[in-house]
């Protein structure tokens, strides 16, 4: 029963994606939407990414230094661990998990409201492919901005670690720098970027699906928004495991 309802949902999602990825009828209009979405979903998320990453970077560094590091560990450990956690997991997966709340509820609510106020019907009557016009620019915009957000997140996390060194005097900046540079694999950075592109797709397309199929009124829009955030967070977590195994 449960399985068949999941399969149904998957089928409907795939059909919607089929409509989303069709050739735009008016490229200029899509471009305009695409730029709008990059600003709304990407640029407007920069502040929260910077703040969250800064504190997490600082806290990881302090935790490792104060609670984990011991006399028999080399002094570069806390810098090293901070860098690897930021690159491998935080700046891509956890960041997207946080963004799925912000971006996901935004998309589901916006599209759901357009559905219940018949704006989507109005688009359809005009002969516009509403799924493609509304959803494609969001997916494309988020995928474009995501690598930038990942880079900013890593950068901000490292700044947080330096803040712990310079302001908190938890460890010396020299030790931190040494740790940050120790045994660096550029692939780890790219792995984060590749993962984040998949997550960007999930946290835009899944909420769009929930919003697009709303029926009813404001209560249903609210429910769609919550469901969208829950579902896209779950999917980010599940796919994180597979992607990590696949890319390592």
């Amino acid at each position, binding site marked *: 029963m449960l399985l068949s309802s999941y399969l149904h949902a998957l089928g409907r999602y795939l059909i919607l994606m089929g409509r989303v990825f069709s050739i735009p*009828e*008016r490229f200029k209009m899509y471009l305009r939407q695409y730029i709008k979405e990059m600003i709304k979903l990407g640029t407007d998320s920069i502040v929260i990414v910077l703040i969250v990453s800064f504190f997490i970077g600082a806290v990881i560094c302090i935790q490792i230094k104060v609670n984990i590091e011991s006399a028999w560990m080399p002094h570069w450990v806390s810098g090293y661990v901070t860098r690897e956690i930021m690159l491998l997991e935080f700046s891509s997966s956890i960041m997207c998990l946080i963004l799925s709340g912000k971006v996901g509820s935004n998309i589901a609510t916006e599209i759901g409201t357009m559905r219940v*106020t018949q704006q989507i019907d109005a688009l359809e*009557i*005009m002969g516009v492919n509403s799924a493609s016009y509304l959803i494609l620019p969001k997916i494309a915009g988020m995928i474009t901005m995501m690598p930038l957000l990942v880079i900013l997140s890593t950068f901000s996390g490292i700044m947080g670690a330096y803040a712990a060194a310079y302001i908190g005097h938890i460890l010396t900046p020299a030790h931190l720098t040494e740790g940050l540079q120790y045994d660096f694999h550029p692939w780890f950075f790219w792995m984060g970027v590749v993962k984040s592109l998949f997550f960007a797709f999930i946290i835009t397309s899944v909420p769009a699906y929930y919003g697009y199929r709303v029926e009813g009124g404001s209560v249903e829009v609210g429910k769609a928004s919550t469901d969208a955030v829950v579902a896209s967070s779950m999917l980010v977590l599940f796919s994180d495991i597979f992607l990590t195994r696949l890319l390592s």
Partner: protein
Amino acid sequence: MIQLIDVKKTFDDGKTVLKGISTTFEAGKTNLIIGQSGSGKTVLMKCIVGLFEPSSGQILYHDRDFVTMNKKDRMLLRREMGMIFQSAALFDSISVLENVMFPLDMFSYDSYKERRRRAQFCLDRVNLSDAGEKFPGEISGGMQKRVAIARAISLNPKYLFCDEPNSGLDPKTSLVIDELIHSITQEYGTTTIINTHDMNSVMGIGEHIIYIYEGNREWEGTKDEVMTSDNENLNSFIFASDLFRKIKDANK
């Protein structure tokens, strides 16, 4: 011209709303669909424009069957349609002028200046010359309806659909909107279909009226015939209003 042949609609929950409706809506005429609330007017209109799939029957747009048409042709045909929804359904994230320009931006190959001029012309046509910069949330319900009309006519549609264009409006504004739709219909020879339960509209612009009762086309005629019909169900619908009953008695 739009022709309906035995259009039926049963919903998934087993409820049959349309039980086989046949009629012809001619071009250049205001065609009214009347009936009680819940009689299926909106459902019928949604079937005609393809927002619902009819369970059976044919819908012919100048002999092209819309029901069996493929997606691509449907999209192309829809570019010849304009629709005014019961709730106006303006795009609330863009200004009034941009709303009216939207179909032009999407489908016309005119220059920006020409598109803008056309949109402004449509706004002038509905007496909203100054509202272009406002957002849909900042104007009244009647104005929203008029913007919706301007948006619907911006591409010179061949087919115009209005779902209760004057619900929630005062009698005077209703009259303005009715007149507007009527004159646009005559001017451009559009096939106009209007859902309404407003008897003032019926008497004002009802060139061809179909009355829906319990999912059937119960009666069909013109505004002159509607008052003198002896169809019981139609009479109980029309003369529910005291005023109309008095008019009828006075005419005897």
